[in-house]
């Protein structure tokens, strides 16, 4: 398993902390999901550092690695400032970098993303950039100092799964050694399985669990889905064929 800036997670599922019906359900969902990393959005959940204390202590008690995120930032400056705040609060160099370019699809502004990634990498941050499947953008992010990529499956919160299988496959095979996390757009456990079967290194999701009718059960479903996909990939699956190929040998069959 590839590591993320030196961190080897115990599971390849990363889970967001927003939108759960209650903190108790969030905590139970995390336990069932076996997730190794929790993303926390600094902008929506904080208010300010001191007043959000109760919620932070709940997140800290999850005992998982915290990945603060610049969700909802629309400019380089906002994202960089939010990253600085996150470093102060969470005492971590990790930052999930989101620079949103379009309000309806919440798709990344890849130009701003590369710029912000460069600034933050130079400042010593370990940047997890939320990007598209675009190869050229990926290359520029790597050159700007990122050592992990987070390509989208489909737009944030859409639950559409992996929208561009071809593009994601190309990205995976183009940068085989770069740790990659599929982030955003996952709606079903099978979407996560598919991502892992394609050789991605982890999956990050939030809404699919938090907004399920039974978040705790869905969290458990995802924990299995991730393992299934990862094992499927590791075990070197058979190639698909155009013709049927009998699994029972014909030779030696008795003539009756």
């Amino acid at each position, binding site marked *: 398993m590839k590591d993320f800036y030196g961190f080897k997670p115990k599971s390849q599922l990363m889970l967001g902390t927003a939108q759960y019906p*209650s*903190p108790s359900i969030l905590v139970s969902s995390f336990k069932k999901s076996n997730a190794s990393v929790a993303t926390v959005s600094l902008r929506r959940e*904080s*208010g300010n550092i001191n*007043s*959000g*204390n109760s*919620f932070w202590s709940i997140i800290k008690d999850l005992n998982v690695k915290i990945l603060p995120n610049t969700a909802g930032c629309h400019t380089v400056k906002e994202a960089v400032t939010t990253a600085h705040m996150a470093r102060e609060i969470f005492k971590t160099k990790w930052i999930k970098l989101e620079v949103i370019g379009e309000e309806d699809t919440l798709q990344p502004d890849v130009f701003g993303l590369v710029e912000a990634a460069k600034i933050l990498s130079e400042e010593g941050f370990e940047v997890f950039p939320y990007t598209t499947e675009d190869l050229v953008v990926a290359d520029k992010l790597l050159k700007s100092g990122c050592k992990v990529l987070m390509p989208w499956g489909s737009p944030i919160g859409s639950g559409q799964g992996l929208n561009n299988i071809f593009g994601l496959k190309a990205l995976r095979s183009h940068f085989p050694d770069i740790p990659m996390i599929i982030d955003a757009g996952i709606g079903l456990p099978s979407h996560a399985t598919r991502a892992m079967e394609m050789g991605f290194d982890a999956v990050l999701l939030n809404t699919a669990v938090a907004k399920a009718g039974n978040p705790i059960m869905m969290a458990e479903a995802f924990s299995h889905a991730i393992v299934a996909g990862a094992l499927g990939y590791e075990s070197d699956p058979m190639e698909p064929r155009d013709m049927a190929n009998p699994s029972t040998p014909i030779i030696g069959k008795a003539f009756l």
Partner: protein
Amino acid sequence: MQEIKIIGSGVAGLCVAKELSDKGLKVLVIDKTDSPGPQSCSWWAGGMLAPWCEGESTEKIVVKLGKESIPWWSKNVDGVIKKGSLVIALSRDEPDLNRFGRRTEEFINVDNDEIGKLEPDLKDRFNKGLYFESEAHLSPRETLKSLKKDLLSKGVIFEKKEFNFSSDLNNNQDLIIDCRGLGSKDIQKDLRGVKGEMLIIYCPEINFTRPIRLLHPRIPLYIVPRGKGIYMLGATMIESDDSKNITARSLMELLNAAYAINPIFGEAKILEIGVDARPSYPDNIPSIRKKDNIISVNGLFRHGFLLAPALARMVSELIIDNKTPEIMSEYIG
């Protein structure tokens, strides 16, 4: 006769006072301010008695207990409006409407024509909606005032002072009912605030008669008519104890959503901006807790007017009949 001291006179304190005094018990209500007023978060409430709608995102017990609120308020105050509530979504968010319907009950599906008949100002703007006919709403401030007036007329005494839970308690054998909301954080360690922001606007060109909920992936908005062209727009839900300022983003999102419901809201006058933090336990479900001579009623979250009547009933059953409340939990202090 033993005196019962109720500390805090938000919606929880007043409902408990009403229930106990109706049972003939002698109660004294202590609040550090002249309530009802803006220091209590029930002042800023939506006032929707919408147990079935709340079922979309909450536990079944909230729906069950919330149903008690409509007859309770109707019996005890004037001004409960029983016109149901209407849930709508923009056409691109129709999947959210389907999900809402799947997770709730006691509604009928309505189309554009039926929506237009219920609320003419929504005509030709929404193709689908859910109509929860049995729900109701009230005006929180009028309701709190009228409940207090009723209690005063029945001889309940209101005392303005800050009750100190360390010094005032030591030499006190009275039964204390702690209804201070987030103010109880000193002794209820697992309480937290969930920040809510809301607006009161004046828009006489629009004539909604019932609460309208707009489903939206980022900002679920509700508009509650207060009569005479006044509407309450709410409310955000942010994990924070901050109760001071609205953020620019929240203000923009609330107004944007109102504008999406009907652009005429663009002409509305903003009368008030309200911010407060809702007292909440980790499961967002209220709880009654008892230790020695203290009973705590807290964690009403976003369900003050919806659940206070059921909680008041349970407190009364606990005191009079020693019956264990349906939502009692261990005292954490």
